[in-house]
């Protein structure tokens, strides 16, 4: 990676923390996806990665490229915007589908959550 040598130590530490934080959040989200039992719980877990996790990684990216190149780079804001706008669509659709399915199979989605947790 070119420009890595020119990065000051504090910046290196900052970027590293942000990257580790972001990927850590994503990992926790993934573990949650596996560990949680009911669907309604599961849909929450990955949002950890798609919100705070993404934000950290993007911040790391902004910091890294703005410091190694000569001018500020803010393309990542667009990524953040689009991820924020589009992720809820998936979530909404999935949950709607599950609610209908529960109704079809004669289960009350709310009651079910209380049963299982």
């Amino acid at each position, binding site marked *: 990676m070119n420009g890595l040598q020119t990065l000051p130590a504090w910046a290196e530490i900052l970027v590293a923390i942000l990257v580790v934080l972001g990927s850590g959040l994503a990992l926790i989200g993934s573990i949650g996806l596996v560990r949680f039992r009911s669907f309604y719980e599961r849909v929450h877990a990955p949002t950890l990665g798609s919100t705070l996790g993404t934000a950290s990684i993007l911040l790391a990216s902004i910091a890294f490229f703005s410091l190694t190149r000569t001018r500020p780079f803010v393309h990542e804001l667009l990524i953040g915007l*689009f991820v924020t*706008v*589009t992720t*809820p*669509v998936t979530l*909404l*659709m999935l949950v*709607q589908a599950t609610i*209908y*399915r529960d*109704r*079809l199979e004669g289960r009350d989605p709310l009651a079910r959550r209380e049963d299982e947790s």
Partner: protein
Amino acid sequence: MPDDALFLISIIALPFLGSFIAALLPTNARNAEAWLAGLVSVGVVAIAISFRPVLAAGNVVRAEYAWLPEFGLNFILRLDGLAWSFVVLIGGIGFLVVLYARYYMSPADPAPRFFAFLLAFMGAMLGIVVSGNLIQLVVFWELTSIFSFLLISYWNHNQTARDGARVALTVTAAGGLCLLAAMLLLGRIVGSFDLETVLTSGPRIVSHPLYLTMLILFALGVLTKSAQFPFHFWLPRAMVAPTPVSAYLHSATMVKAGVFLLARFWPAMAGHEYWFWIFAPIGVATLLIGAFMALFQQDLKGLLAYSTISHLGLITLLLGLGSPLAAVAAIFHIMNHATFKASLFMAAGIIDHEAGTRDVRRLGGLYRAMPITALLATVAAAAMAGVPLLNGFLSKEMFFAETIESHVDTVLDKALPYIATIAGVFSVAYSLRLIHQVFFGPPAKDLPRQPHDPVLWMLLPVALLVLICLLVGILPGPTIGNFLAMAVHATLGPQTPTYSLAVWHGFTPALFMSGVAMIGGVALYFALQRYLSGDVEGVPILGALKGKRLFERALVFLSWRWARELEQNAGTTRLQPQMRLLVCVTIAAALWSLFSRPGSLDFTWPSSADPAFVLVWLVGGICAVAAAYQAKYHRLVSLILTGGAGLATCITFAWLSAPDLALTQLLVEIVTTVLILLGLRWLPKRIEGLDPDMTPKARLRRVRDLLIAVAGGAGLAALSYTVLTWPIGNSIASNFLERAYTEGGGRNVVNVILVDFRGFDTFGEIAVLAIASITVFSLLRRFRPARDSIELPAQKSFQNRFDADRYTGGKDPLSAHYMIVPGLIMRLLFPVIAMTAAFLFMRGHDLPGGGFVAGLTLAIAFILQYMAGGTRWAEARLRVLPARWMGFGLLAAAATGAGAWFFGRPFLTSAFAYADIPILGKVPMASALFFDLGVFSVVVGATVLILIALAHQALRVQRVSSDAAAAPPTEGSR
């Protein structure tokens, strides 16, 4: 002589150019069309006349253009005396026909079509006569078949016109194929396709072992075109054409092409007994049968058609005799027949036009109503009958004289004078019948119209032709002598005999035969008059001889029954056997090439690998295998797993530094997954465990199929692995890398390869893409789903019922309820995605992106709109016309490619420059960008077309099911 070459090419170019212009004129521009066509024909004749002095001196005008020099084929134009006389005939009679047609065609007939076809036909015919190359000649020959088809079927609302045209096309075009074979053989025998060389190598051709084969094929071509027995049946059926067409095609042009070719190749091929034995008997048979059948026709044009057949038989016989003097008579008769038959056809057209019928029995006494027409037709018919002082008499007398001479000492040869006289008798009889029954006798009463002479301009062409008949008949020497000498000399060369063109040769046997024919004909007619005026349809004795019936039977067998049987025995409509066959053939081909060159498949296993990369591949592989495993019963799962495998591929590309491919792969994955998802609903249901007690045979079949599948898949994997691990060495890739910027003007090598270096491949690919999507669209239009997938799936109908119960006030539960937020976001994202597409497109030449990726991106934007609001919502707001996108794309790509021609470069040569645009700064502008725009447009169109096809499938089926079930009112709101 560049001027000569220019004039020579104009002979062919003028009519085709005129045809093109004529096609573009407005529908009712009859006068403009006639002027154009008339000027073109006059121009052709004028050019021909300007060449006369050169040709009269015995020279040949030649022009040669490189066509396919690698194959020894050049576009050669060659004008000699024979070709010259045909050019004058075609152009001159063409002019008269145009003049006649201007007044004959009704204002309701579309004029551009008529004149465009007529001029194109004229061009094709002129192309035949001035061709100096055998293959080129066949090309024009087939063009005449096609344009005559279009002309005969001009009144295409008429079933008989279409049938007649189809028969004519089938017969003459099939003959044309035989002619092509003959010309290829001839070229092989001679060693050149140049007509000049062929004409001078007669002895070599005749002594060649392939001579007979070639001659038979040649005969098939020539005899079908000239409507010789037994192929004559197409000509009477072609009489459904407008009369100007009949007058042109069946006097001076179409049918004369056959005998022209006979005359043309006479010096090269006639020097053998076979020539006589093929053409003389057929000529005799056609002469007799045509004359006999003509006498019994009740339709004026039918009579003329059969008399044409008979006269062509006469010409074929004369050429078939193989003696130079007979060839002279044949050429002379070709000219004479063209003049009197054209005028007779026109006269018949006038009668039809003015009296409203062509039935000989209904007509009568017309000389009172139309005296000028009567006079002209009488003279022309007399020429046809061979009355002295008319041109027909001269050539007929030459014919009679020639039949008396002995050629090949056989029974046929001895019988010829008698046969000729009998044919003459019939010829006189039908000519007399034509005149007597139409113009004389008691006046007809119940005619559809009140007949009278037509306008002067319509009579003028007839009058001119009749004048020529008279002049040639009375003063043959000064009028036609020079022209005939020129044509004969050009045909026969040193073999040219001495002949005399006088009207009076003294009391010769030929004159005696003429006399017998004349008296016999008159007697025959008056003997048969009562019978002919009666209610007779068809021809006695020969009526059973129905070439047409045989032809149709043959067609039914060839194109229906045999084709059907072949399809039933060798084909299958089931997908499984087709797939099995395909895969087996592929495996066999691969194995064959492997074992024919052994040792070419050696594996080199990678020495080290990144564990993360291996993990990605492991996941991808598992996804792929699992997808195959689930494909039968769990299609949705299988589709999701396929997407997983696709993502693994995508990551691989990105990993190996191919961002372009990664981007493309990603977008392709998205689009295909969505489209398949939409289509999934229409697949029939599979019920697991339906067949518990499978027979051993079925089990065995499954095992076999599994083996085939594994062999195919593993083989393909091995093959691609070998290719991928192949030592790179000196490949073309480095060449591309070096030249991408210097010659293509782009830094993105992949894109430069696609739109520039391999632009022609891409052009083909986008064409295939367009075709494929249109195929999908048409297949889905006809698609009727299985009964059990017509109804909505249980989940969906439950959902609808639930929504209807709960949101009774809502108009549309879909957009009113759970899609509100996602739908809004999808809608708002449309411009953003479109902008991304534009961005990807613009930067494609230097960075990852390009037309294909941009097209897919925009297509995704459209797909999202369909998903967000449903088909009706999306189409009410956003009309995409995919066919136009695709059409524009293909045209843009082709136009960009063709643009290079204007700079003298080969097709698809790219040019590039930098343009200074305000704000954006320097933007690379390569001409390849427009090509890429075409790619973009085609991709958008193709993808959206498939989307629309799938979306409308859902709409259509809903309509059908709601109609059938008389759906409850809640359902209707969907």
